[in-house]
């Protein structure tokens, strides 16, 4: 988030992308699109797919709808142009065509903004990819309110709710670039549809090394005896910040679990953790209705857990406008916001 300030800090010529028109002698505040996109370092889809292609995965093809650059698959497009299909701004055609491609022995990766993929394309995903149970990979980037002031049309706070009710579909949420890479690689041979709910690529890095991901798995990133925060996506980093603050300022020890597999959920871990506490928390950049909180709530209720769940996320309303960092603060989704909520609940418990 604070990474935006690199603009003001002067430029290292080595960090200017080759296709940028901005040179080191430009005003440090000047930027063009390639320079802006270079900030989305955590979107590792293209790099990961290049690696896999180099390692002999000839079946991988990439589809996008005029968003190959912002979703960072342009490197794949340049390296493997005969395996890259840009459909223009025609998402439904792209999704259905990816399904058709999958019937011919290819492994299509769709890389697109989440709101145009999961929300606009929901019916195509359901009928052409999931009903047919085809091995198509969808990487929906810029989920939640990461697009900030671009407004509601560019926000995606309903996609978890929509996608987790579609049979045959596995829904995973990588929280940073290493997680994207780990999730893609770990599930590469899964013979069914998969959706990766990714952020804008400017998230704080959580993982310093790749991990073996499991469909239905999670990672306990921090232990703590007082409560557990189950987090997805960008909220994982914020939850870790919150745990730090809670320990420092309130003497509260909160565990943090990265629930990178939203559907299926790691119910074993959720139940084991919830069983230790009277209160647990979920954190997601999504409407608290129908999304990750609901998935955890179902798990608790269906298993007779008396633990009280406190969902942290977007209220059941469209976001106000603002820069993303301001929005995370406004909605209490950043580290300070989560810490405040947790402290308040536990102190009144």
């Amino acid at each position, binding site marked *: 988030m604070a990474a935006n300030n690199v603009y003001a800090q002067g430029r290292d010529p080595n960090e200017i992308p080759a296709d940028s028109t901005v040179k080191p002698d430009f005003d440090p505040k000047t930027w063009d699109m390639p320079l802006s996109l270079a900030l989305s370092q955590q979107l590792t889809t293209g790099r990961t797919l290049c690696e896999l292609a180099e390692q002999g995965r000839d079946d991988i*093809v990439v589809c996008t709808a005029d968003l190959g650059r912002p979703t960072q698959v342009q490197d794949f497009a340049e390296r493997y142009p*005969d*395996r890259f*299909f840009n*459909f*223009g701004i*025609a998402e*439904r*055609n*792209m*999704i*259905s*065509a*990816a*399904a*058709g*491609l*999958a*019937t*011919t*022995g*290819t492994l*299509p990766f769709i890389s697109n903004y989440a709101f145009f993929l999961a929300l606009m394309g929901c*019916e*195509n995903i359901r*009928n*052409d990819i999931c*009903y*047919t*149970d085809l091995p198509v990979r969808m990487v929906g980037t810029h989920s939640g309110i990461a697009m900030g002031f671009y407004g509601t049309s560019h926000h995606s706070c309903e996609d978890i709710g929509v996608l987790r009710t579609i049979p045959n579909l596995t829904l995973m949420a990588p929280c940073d670039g290493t997680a994207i890479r780990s999730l893609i690689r770990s599930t590469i041979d899964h013979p069914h549809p998969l959706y990766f709910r990714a952020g804008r690529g400017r998230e704080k890095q959580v993982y310093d090394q790749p991990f073996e991901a499991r469909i239905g798995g999670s990672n306990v990133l921090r232990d703590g005896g007082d409560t557990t925060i189950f987090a997805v996506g960008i909220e994982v980093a914020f939850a870790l910040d919150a745990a730090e603050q809670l320990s420092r300022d309130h003497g509260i020890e909160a565990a943090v679990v990265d629930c990178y597999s939203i559907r299926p959920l790691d119910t074993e871990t959720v139940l084991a953790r919830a069983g230790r506490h009277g209160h647990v928390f979920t954190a997601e950049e999504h409407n608290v209705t129908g999304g990750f909180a609901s998935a955890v709530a179902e798990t608790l209720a269906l298993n007779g857990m008396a633990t009280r769940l406190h969902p942290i996320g977007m209220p059941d309303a469209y976001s106000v406008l603002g820069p993303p960092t301001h929005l995370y603060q406004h909605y209490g989704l950043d580290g300070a916001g989560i810490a405040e909520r947790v402290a308040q609940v536990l102190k009144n418990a």
Partner: protein
Amino acid sequence: MSRDVRNVDKSILAEKAKMIRRDVVEQTDVCGSGHYGSAFSIAEILAVLYYQLMHVRPDAPTWEDRDRFTMGKGHAAIALYPVLADLGFFDRSWLDNYTRLNSPLGDHPDMRKVPGADFSSGSIGHNLSVSVGMALGAKRNGSPARAICLMGDGEMTEGQVWEAAVSAPNFGLDNLVGIVDINKAGSDGYTADIMDTRPLADKWQAFGWRVIPLADGHDLDQVSNALNDALNRPDGRPTVVLADTVAGKGVSFMEGYWQWHLGFLGPKDKERALAEIEKGLN
């Protein structure tokens, strides 16, 4: 990419078209309602495709070099099932249980349940896009497979069709063939009254497709020539065959009536219809 054409006598194709219509009537009798109009209008097209032009292997339904047939107008799958059964993709007895509890054969085709069905459908407007993907995949694999998508004229109002139409020439898909079954009947009335999409030839041409008009979609010589041109004489562009057909063709009291888009024949009228079907088209 052109492929061999089987030398099939026209009388055999006519018999297959009769079989399709007969089985549509019988399956609808099991179900209690059916798309007679939409199924009868494509009987000759299906007969020519499957018995003369397409390369498929009933003993290996997922053979990777098979020609792919998808149905944008999936509600006419009732006409496809008799063909697949007759070719040996599955047992003809499946037809007797059409749409009954747990039957693989529903009103719309399901690729996971019906051997020989190349894709699932039911949501109109999707399958030309799917076929674009299939044609892209075939090209990438160096396969001789062609992707054929049968659409309805009512389907021409779906925006996604035109997204697909824009993309196919861009991708150079000369192995893609669209067929528009212009039977002029929709669910609410005549397609031209509901939402007129004419002139279709101009539209497809403007989108960069080769257009082959088929003046009478029930004349076997014309159907055969048009589809053979489309499949076996590619000119670098995707091809669309605009087939002028008659909804309900083959049963006089249904012909040309949108009212038989969906319906049911009582026992007496079923016998009348079957008798007319047995006589065949003139």
